[in-house]
């Protein structure tokens, strides 16, 4: 949950990128890191295996600017997508303020998307959260691939509640900042609501 420091005049929020393995969560963070002004970002940390699969998490701190005299910092995390890292995924969800679900648009990854979405819902529940009550955005990544299924179909399977969704091609940056902006907005509005 957000950390508001009246003394340092800072708000810190945690956003977690969730989704199936090889879906593009780390690529999202890498693109944000690449395109963000050096003054606004910290170091990006990736705890990955030798073959660059996320082992524990990626972490990117961003300081986007000020709101009402408070510096707003976002801590972006990814989870390891591979099914057998479930224990790690649960840990990373602790204290989450907002979730981005990065889905893989390819038809052959549909089952993995659905499984990961169920897993997200379940893991949040274990921590006492309800996904439908959290700031939540869905990103349909890999829109450029030939086997990408239609957005309608993806929405039907993954987004029955109709939360904001974005089409993306993560390595090229398409849809990345749109997604980030939407989740940041929802998280800040949630802080407003809680105040």
């Amino acid at each position, binding site marked *: *949950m957000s*950390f508001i420091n009246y003394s340092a005049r800072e708000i810190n929020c945690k956003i977690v990128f969730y989704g199936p393995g090889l879906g593009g969560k780390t690529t999202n963070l890498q693109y944000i890191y690449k395109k963000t002004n050096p003054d606004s970002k910290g170091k990006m940390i990736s705890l990955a295996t030798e073959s660059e699969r996320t082992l524990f998490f990626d972490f990117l701190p961003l300081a986007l600017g000020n*709101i009402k*005299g408070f510096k707003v910092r976002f801590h972006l995390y990814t989870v390891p997508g591979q099914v057998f890292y479930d*224990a790690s995924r649960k840990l*990373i969800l602790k*204290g989450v303020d907002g979730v981005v679900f990065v889905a893989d648009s390819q038809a052959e990854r549909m089952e993995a998307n659905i499984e990961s979405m169920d897993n997200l819902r379940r893991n949040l529940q274990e921590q006492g959260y309800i996904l439908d009550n959290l700031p939540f955005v869905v990103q349909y990544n890999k829109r450029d691939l030939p086997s990408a299924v239609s957005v309608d179909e993806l929405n039907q399977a993954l987004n029955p509640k109709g939360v904001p969704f974005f089409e993306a091609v993560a390595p090229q940056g398409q849809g990345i900042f749109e997604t980030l902006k939407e989740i940041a907005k929802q998280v800040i509005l949630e802080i407003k609501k809680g105040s």
Partner: protein
Amino acid sequence: MPDPGLIMYEEEFKQIDAELRRLHQQANAKVTFLVDKNGQLISAIGETENLDTTSLASLTAGNIAATGGMAKLLGEKDFSILFHEGERDNIHISLVGRVILVVIFDQRSSLGLVRLRVKKSVEVLGQILQKILQKVDQAKGPAGAGGGTPKEAAKSPFAEITEDDIEKLFG
């Protein structure tokens, strides 16, 4: 229910800073810092100029979370102390309720001294955190109940946030 968000007020922040400063001095440490279990840095004292404290905070929380997960598998509630020994620098990590106290030290100090001083600080910090939680609870309680709402919480600046403010963040 998940933990409510942590809110830090000026008064307690100063007390935490003072305690970290005292520990830094008495344990002969290089750096002392306090991190929220979610990885947010609360305060850092000492030789922090060349240290990426934000990343260190996030990794500390990850570390505590991972060992906490291991503890549960063994039927333990938590491992409340972690110690990492390096060639030059060492890290001593201890749990204080929902926050984590970290001490980085080198050969100018020793594990025994650090453990001794940390023990006292854990008590003091625990009390300060208790006070913060009480304040937050009071602020979130029903309006007028007891009439003890802290001033800072009563005039939350965030109630006035507009969509425009958020737009500006992204230039």
